[in-house]
């Protein structure tokens, strides 16, 4: 059997999208009442739930408290049922730890932490179904959750991946596209165009980086539009409730 091609001559990807098209995104804010903020997001078949507590006093050792800003604490986990083959990860694996660290870096850059010195903000993210782009879904869900908690941020943080089929950049890689080519993950603050995180796995020729980065940035801006709409809808909903 011949290996499946990433992009057909007619310009379609294996799942019927065109190169620049994202997977379908659906999101909701405020799914948990007891948390300060929460959000649920679906990007294609990847489903993520983010919950935010804080800002609150330091829990555990107070010595960790930072004198000038808030501590962002991130935890990432995958549900045992999130992959096709059930696998228990009681203490998380290396990959989970790495991802949590990335999340932390991303949100330390986005949240205005200097407003809350000596306090702590907890972000818990869980993947309910994994289907590629876990990090991106986590970032997007966490953004919404942080907003839901009312914590001030510089901007939305939108994350999206991009791959390459020959010379054509493919936005928002699906898992079956993982077989070919390098992967680029970008977390962007869309309004300013600042990059919160950029990750590149596998080698990529310098000349193509620009194109891939551009595609990922485009995808992030598109995501921003979607998330923005979700936030506005939520806001309208909440104010309507308050109005009653």
């Amino acid at each position: 059997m011949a290996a499946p091609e990433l992009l057909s001559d007619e310009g379609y990807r294996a799942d019927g999208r065109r190169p620049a098209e994202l997977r379908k995104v659906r999101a909701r804010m405020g799914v948990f009442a007891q948390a300060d903020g929460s959000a649920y997001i679906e990007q294609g078949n990847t489903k993520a739930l983010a919950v935010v507590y804080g800002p609150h006093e330091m829990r555990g050792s107070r010595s960790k408290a930072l004198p000038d800003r808030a501590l962002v604490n991130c935890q990432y986990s995958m549900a045992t049922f999130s992959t096709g083959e059930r696998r228990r990860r009681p203490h998380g694996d290396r990959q989970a730890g790495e991802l949590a660290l990335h999340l932390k870096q991303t949100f330390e850059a986005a949240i205005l932490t200097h407003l809350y010195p000596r306090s702590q903000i907890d972000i818990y993210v869980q993947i309910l179904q994994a289907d590629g782009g876990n990090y991106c879904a986590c970032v997007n869900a966490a953004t919404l959750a942080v907003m839901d908690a009312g914590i001030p941020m510089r901007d939305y943080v939108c994350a999206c991946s991009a791959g390459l089929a020959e010379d054509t950049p493919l936005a928002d890689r699906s898992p079956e596209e993982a077989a070919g080519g390098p992967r680029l993950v970008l977390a962007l603050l869309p309004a300013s165009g600042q990059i919160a995180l950029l990750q590149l796995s596998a080698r990529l020729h310098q000349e193509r980086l620009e194109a891939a980065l551009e595609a990922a940035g485009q995808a992030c801006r598109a995501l921003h539009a979607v998330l923005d709409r979700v936030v506005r809808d939520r806001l309208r909903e909440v104010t309507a409730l308050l109005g009653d």
Partner: protein
Amino acid sequence: MLRTEKVLQLRGQQGRSVRVVREHYLRPDVPCRSALCRAACPRDGKLLSDDVTHYVVPDCKVVQDYLEILEFPELKGIIFMQTACQAVQHQKGRRQYNKLRNLVKDARHDCIVFANEFHQHSYLPREKGESMDKWQTRSIYNAAVWYYNHCLGQMPVVMVTEDEDAIRQYGNETEGVFVISFKNYLDNFWPDLKAAHELFDSILQTRRERESESQENNGKEYPEHLPVEILEAGIKSGRYIQGTLNVNKHRAQVEAFVRLQGFGSKETELQSDILIYGARARNRAIHGDVVAVELLPLQEWKGRTVALCENETEDKALADTSGDPMPTGKVVGIIQKNWRDYVVTFPSKEENQSQGRNAQKVLVTPWDYRIPKIRISTQQAEALQEYRVVVRIDSWESTSVYPNGHFVRVLGKIGDLEGEIAAILVENSICVAPFSEIQMSEMPTSSSKNPWKVNPEEEKKRLDLRDTHLIFSIDPKGCEDVDDALSVRTLPNGNLELGVHIADVTHFVAANSYTDVEARARATTYYLADRRYDMLPSVLSADICSLLSGVDRYAVSVLWELEKESYEMLRVCYNKTIIRSAYKLVYEAAQGLLDGDTNVVDDIPELKNLDERTKQKKLSDLVWAISKLTDIARHVRAKRDSCGALELEGVEIRVQLDDKNNIHDLIPKQPLEVHETVAECMILANHWVAKKISEHFPHQALLRQHPPPRQEFFTELRECASAKGFSIDTRSNKALAESLDKANDPLDPIVNKLLRSMATHAMSNAVYFSTGSCPKEEFHHYGLALEKYTHFTSPIRRYADIVVHRLLMAATLKETKGDVKDNIFSNKDLQELCRHINNRNRAAQRAQKQSTELFQCMYFKDKTPETDERCVADGVIYSIRTNGVLVFVPRYGIKGAAYMKNKEGLVIACQGDKSCEWKPGSLHRFQNKITSTTTTGESVTLSLFDHITVKILVQTSRCHADTIKLEITRNATYQTSDTEVSQKNFHVVKSDLVKQVSQSAEAAQRAQEKARVDVIDEDYQEYCQTKGASLYQLLEEIRDLALLDVSADIRT
């Protein structure tokens, strides 16, 4: 954009099936790419023209099978649905798919791809339980209907399919969309397109053939092997038979035999081997595998081939060449794979090109004919073309004609002496790395300045024979490793004491030490034509364990007390001793002393520099000892002869068939009686030690047995002998020996030699065994006519002797100190060890034979047979086959096949002066002769034992060892075949060979010089040791020199 999901079952990483959900996006804006489109479809790229009568939509099957027809430029307006394209991609592979893609891209062809599965309205999800084929057909039809409607019915759409159901179901469903078969389509729309019709027919036919084939084997090259449980149960119940697969070297493609073993053979009445005919029946088993075989019904039994043939010619008319039907079976499972490292050759450049441009997979040819070609993945194929290479087989799937392997290492250039020798070693699984440091560190030190000395502690434990006994050794000239010495003296009571002293190797090689483990793995010293690989480090074999004269050495001695007149054995004892050999004699000197020839005295270094009186005194002592020994040996021998010991080893044969004889002297050796004397003493010692250890360890002693041969194997011998008017009685070893002596043609001494070699052929090999694994009646040694026998006298070069030494020590200590069971193998372990030693011995013999052949071929290779008279020799016919004869060339000791019918089908014809040439005609085979009749009526008859003149050629082969080929040139004795001339010739041959080989490579020269030394070693091995050993070595050498392997020869 709509989002749906597809659910797939995929294979997970661990082979489990995993449920995978994939997204599938549908859109309304998939362009239809038709010029007729009135909708807002984008019109970029290639468009389907609007000046055709119809659009045609082929379904998956049609695209897969008849793409070649769709490539005709006459066919216009083709819409390939995405569903069909994907089916091609998945089922036909990249090549076919690329062909399709190129077709679509080609602007001259009026065809497009429509991505029906991504279009919102033409996509149909696969329903639960719907088969793939059905869904594909349904999708394509649905897409065709959509397309028709999309074009607003301006253009009729024809869907072609091979699915009858679809034609019935959809044929009339929609107006304007027709569903017909491809044949119908061609007939109706393109009746004039002859080429397309012809192509269609031919494709259809090949497809049908393939289908009928695949019905037989389910698309697999071989049937699957049965699971182990079924095999085990089947073998127990007798349904399957277990045995070892032996591939016929000369017909490796088709013929293999399974030698029975295990449960099966006891219950079935099958006496012979089972024939496995063809590669399919062999079912991926490789030579040497233990397999389970199922017998085929009687009517499918086949006969073995009796014609001579070469491996290269694969298809020959078999009908007239096969013999009587024999049990035939097929392999149903492999119980144990005995894959080893294989030496292979990469195909040469020319061959490689024919294998296609995909050079990453290369079919390599093993050196051993019996191993199938192996498929290797490598990028280095070109670089490795000139080399012999080692590969290993990884797997052999049932879907693959050839096994898969991988490259391991390079041995050396093809044709290079070192490379070829390395190939021989690898092929026989002989590992001869130099001894490691850790092994050497176990060795005691000894140098010329600081010779090894007796340890005073050890001295107390041992019996000191240094001053009491006159001990001497008799060996060939130049021998270094003396492992045995003899003594005889008169006891105070008037009786005689005979002593055999063997080097005490086990004292230096502790059980399970590194050296011991290494020696066990090697099992024997390997003698190749030009070199040898020692079993023990040379510090032991040539120095500390060698019983040299004038130095103290540890020994294990067997001492017998004999009655002075009748030589009756009164007592025997086995002791650890310290000895000092007085003389290291050579055979010639010993014989000289025995004959009273005083000239040889000067050759004995130990007697030099002595005053005349001591010298005379010492000399008379020595002469007395030697003559006494000879007397005793004669007596013992006579006793053994009366029991029926076989004397197959005529002195002349020994020389003639010595496998070295192209570098060895051909002058018949003076048969010296001392040879016999020494040999007889060794047999005696071996025999008594065997008695001792089997008494003390009835279940775990290592002995050597020689089972009596099967009578049916002697048939050929009897028939051949009767051709010359002799009758051979094979009922017992004694009768056989006597009748062989009688079967002597005074005019032609070679007849007797050939008969003797046939007799040895028919016999089985002597093997080591553990007494616990064999009933007592089978301990018997047929050739030597002894009820118990073992190997005790050469611990330096045989591991079996080391084991026997340990057993003997344990047995003697047991008497004094109670149980010393350390280092004694249990029956099971010992049997396993015996099997290993037997295997290694066979490998050693094979390697020796192959290296000799290698030298023979290298010798004859450079000669031009037309001009060089050394390539012409006298030959004797010793076997008749349907298309030729087997010929023995006494001058070089070569056995080979000579064809009477060549590849063009011409037969041999005789001229007036008896020279031969090829002419058209036919061959007729009778029992003892073969007649070739030409179309012109002349005829030549060759019978058994006829002398003919043959030309010796070397048949070179890139992938395998070169072989000697014989060609009949005259139907008469070679003129110069009288002994004197041939001897003269021979000396030329000898020096020539050395010269030539030395010219060819410097390395070879050194090897050759060593070879001379080794010849002496060979002598040593043959003559100074037990007669038993040399007899079997000889027998096996003769056997190995035979053209065919035993399994093939015995039963023809």
